[in-house]
């Protein structure tokens, strides 16, 4: 029975993979390519800096959130341990 399930899942995955499109070259936004395809002028540099900033922001935000949650959880644990010792 288990082998049958595995086989069915395999067939479904194979069917899904077979309809995937063929590999294509990576393409950028047409407007960006038109505006920025050229030497490093101020506009290109401005877009680069802005892109880097936007790329870094989610990592910074999520990282800050993670550190804050970790510190909050640790503080809560310490408080609970302290309460347990005093009870």
């Amino acid at each position, binding site marked *: 029975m288990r082998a049958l399930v595995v086989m069915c899942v395999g067939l479904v995955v194979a069917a899904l993979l077979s309809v995937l499109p063929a590999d294509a070259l990576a393409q950028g936004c047409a407007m960006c390519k038109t505006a920025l395809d050229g030497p490093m002028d*101020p*506009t290109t*540099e*401005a*877009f680069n*800096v*802005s*892109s880097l*900033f*936007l790329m870094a*922001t*989610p990592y910074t*935000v*999520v990282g800050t*959130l993670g550190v*804050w*949650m970790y510190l*909050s*959880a640790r503080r*809560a*644990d310490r408080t*609970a341990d302290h*309460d*347990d*010792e005093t*009870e």
Partner: protein
Amino acid sequence: MPAARRLTRTGSTLRVTATGGPRAAAPRVSNARLAMAIFLAFESMFFAALVAAYLVFRLRTAIWPPVDLPELPLAVTWLNTGVLFASAVTMRRARRAQRDGLRDELARALTATAVLGTVFLAVQGSEWVRLVRHGLTLSAGMYGATFYTLIGCHGLHVLAAVVWLLVVLARAQRHRFAGAVRVPLELCAIYWFFVVALWAGLFPLVYLL
């Protein structure tokens, strides 16, 4: 006698004491704080998008501000920045007063924070009126558009924070115990600190860069 701890099937902690039965402990990070943190993450991304757009326009332009438009008022804004930072200090005092159960001190500190926030908004508003009279309007090119969008969005956030603070203040004055406003005050304070921290980034970017 130390309390024993067990984990429930859902992962939350049960504390079993010698005197009483098992009772569920509070979650390590409260739902309200977690929701606030997620909301602020969205807010951060919103402002990041605005800053990214500002950076594109700012860095591609050699002469900033444009010659026919007025420069931003630096001295007044420095003072206004000090006012906003002072409001963070009074908000911190309010939180401490709430923790210590000092109801009068809590009301005083919250009032001071609200007043400082209102002063910040009033000064910003008066400066904007002056800038508009000198020709720096929302439609005066990219300079005006990016300035008013970025600083205007921050101003709206400060306004929302002041309104929220006034609601918390009213609640604190209605209740007899300072503990009754613990969660609303905590969330409001987090939002307030966020707005102040945001200004710490926006002020150098827009006014000093």
